[in-house]
């Protein structure tokens, strides 16, 4: 029975991949997020740009119709059958997504954990994204700085089934601990990144109850950031400082109007653009990942590459897209030399 395991039906595909490597063509990259979410909208553009510039056969953004682990796995299996030979995957679950990646690996198809990491040991080439914990830490630091180092903050974060949530909670706690008692973490509300209504209700309930005790808000998930920004605008309170996450229009507009201090940008465009490029190099030109490259490490993996994260305050908030592209260009300069070994 065990030998059956090795003989994968992807033999055909494997042959295609090897053939492709020889001809240096026909690289089809699939960019698979965990489900429909505005965060990934920039992936599509990133993939498209990479396709044009690096001559990939395809770099397609393929979204599972719902946020379901099973659905994402099915989708990956489907795409394999359709002949995709390079995958950028946002792990629906840091542990469980290793399984479809292992399937890909045994069919000779490389994959990169993108925008979020899989937990080591992982078949992913590496993890390319934002260090969620670090981002939350930096955001909290920015918030504390804006508050002048003292006051009371609250933390709104994502779903508890996502281990990133725990990382974010730890990171905020660490930043608070480093404030030497100047900052108090009043409360953390989690499990509010599923639907906008849920986030809206709980955040407003807290602001209603404890609003006058609260001096700062740190959010480390998309929907809570949007809801908090909306709530602060609604109250019209610029006393409470807030640092959000990501680049939703609502958050950016609130930054511009002074209701939100800033947001922790991630770089989805760059993730897709550089990720697709790496696939072209590896699948199309036989490059390999340099195991001795200066990877960073985080709570999940030791092979982490930062796609660039940064604080976006009111300065230059209008052309944050260009900020992302600049960050991407900066990364691109040294990427091949640092992380890949090519024949």
């Amino acid at each position, binding site marked *: 029975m065990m030998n059956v395991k090795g003989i994968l039906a992807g033999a055909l595909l494997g042959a295609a991949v090897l053939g492709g490597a020889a001809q240096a063509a026909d690289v089809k990259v699939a960019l698979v997020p965990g489900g429909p979410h505005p965060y990934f909208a920039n992936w599509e553009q990133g993939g498209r740009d990479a396709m044009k510039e690096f001559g990939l056969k395809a770099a397609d953004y393929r*979204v599972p119709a719902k946020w379901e682990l099973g659905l994402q796995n099915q989708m990956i299996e489907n795409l394999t059958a359709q002949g995709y030979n390079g995958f950028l995957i946002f792990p629906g679950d840091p542990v469980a997504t290793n399984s479809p990646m292992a399937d890909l690996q045994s069919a000779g198809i490389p994959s990169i954990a993108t925008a979020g990491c899989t937990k080591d040991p992982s078949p992913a080439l590496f993890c390319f994204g934002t260090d969620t914990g670090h981002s939350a830490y930096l955001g909290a630091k920015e918030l504390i700085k804006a508050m002048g180092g003292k006051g009371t903050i609250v933390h709104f974060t994502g779903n508890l089934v996502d281990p990133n949530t725990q990382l974010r909670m730890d990171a905020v706690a660490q930043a608070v601990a480093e404030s030497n008692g100047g900052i108090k973490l009043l409360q953390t509300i989690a*499990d509010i990144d*599923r639907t906008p209504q849920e986030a809206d*209700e709980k955040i*407003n*309930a807290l602001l*209603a*109850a404890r609003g006058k005790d609260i001096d700062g808000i740190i959010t480390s998930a998309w929907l809570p950031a949007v809801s908090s920004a909306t709530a602060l605008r*609604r109250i019209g309170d610029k006393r409470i400082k807030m640092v959000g996450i990501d680049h939703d229009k*609502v958050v950016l507009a609130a930054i511009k109007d002074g209701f939100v201090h800033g947001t922790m940008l991630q770089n989805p465009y760059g993730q897709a653009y550089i990720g697709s490029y790496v696939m072209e190099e590896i699948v199309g030109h036989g490059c390999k990942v340099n195991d001795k490259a200066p990877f960073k490490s985080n709570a999940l993996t030791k092979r982490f590459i930062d796609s660039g994260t940064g604080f976006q305050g009111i300065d230059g908030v209008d052309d944050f897209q260009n900020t992302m592209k600049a960050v991407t260009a900066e990364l691109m300069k040294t990427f091949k030399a640092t992380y890949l070994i090519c024949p």
Partner: protein
Amino acid sequence: MNAFRRMLRSDSLGLALVVLLGGAALSIARPEFLTAYNIDVILVGFCLTVIYALGQGVIIAIGHMNLALGATGCLVAVSFGGAMQVWGLPVWAAVIFGLLIGMFCGFVNGWLTHKSGLTSFIITLATMSIFKGISLGITEAQPFYGVAESVKAFGSDRWGPLPETLLVALPIVIGLAVFLGRMIPGRQMLAFGGNPSAAELSGISRARMVILAHTLSGLLAAIAGMMSVARLQLASPAIGDEWLIASFAAPVIGGAVLSGGHLSVLGTCLGVLIVSLINQALVMLAVDPFYVQVLLGALILGAVGLNRLRESRMGNAPVLRLS
């Protein structure tokens, strides 16, 4: 006296007690509970939830189910947002557009259920997928941000201590209570839900009742969808995703029977309030996020169990012929 006794027997009294006691306890523990802002927060949530809960309620009343409720709300929300952002329709036109879409979705559910003779469960399961798919298809999972300022203002403005959305929700609640309690088509709907074949023999048309209830449900889903847009200030294709369970929970906690024939509008309102009160308490008492789910479940069970206990004390439990 008679009215008083009837009130005592109604399914709502126990729930009202739970709400009052819970509210009182919470306001003692957290005086901020009674601030105008917080009452506004509760009411805003209430206004939205009660509308879609009633949207499910009218379907439960005829013994059917509408799994496509959230998907209808979602489709209306994004159509409403899209009509304003992409087509640049004025608000009133977008509202009418949204209402029509909602009613059409409901009508389709009702018509298919009636014509096919299949259970509404399976029909609305399929249409849920269709409606949700269209919403995702036209938005590509991106929210529409181009919501008119007047709509945003409606979602956030207050009228004294009361949110403006109450101006929509309250007439709907009262209207529906009158519709089901006093108006002939409403009574006929409940009669049909209670005993379809008997209702038919009394000259009540099956087709009309099924289509009426489903269309009404679609209409309420549409209103709730557009209220979500006003509240959230954007038309997100994630609107409606969490409606399903909540929409069943509130009427059922409020005493509705899933087999049909009964819907208490007041009970449904109280059911919504109980759930939101529990959520409020969990936030206000700063419960560790890891305990929230456990307590939420335990409190729902407790609240419903308490009501059931009172009912059986009153000899008012649903008439079970055994033991």
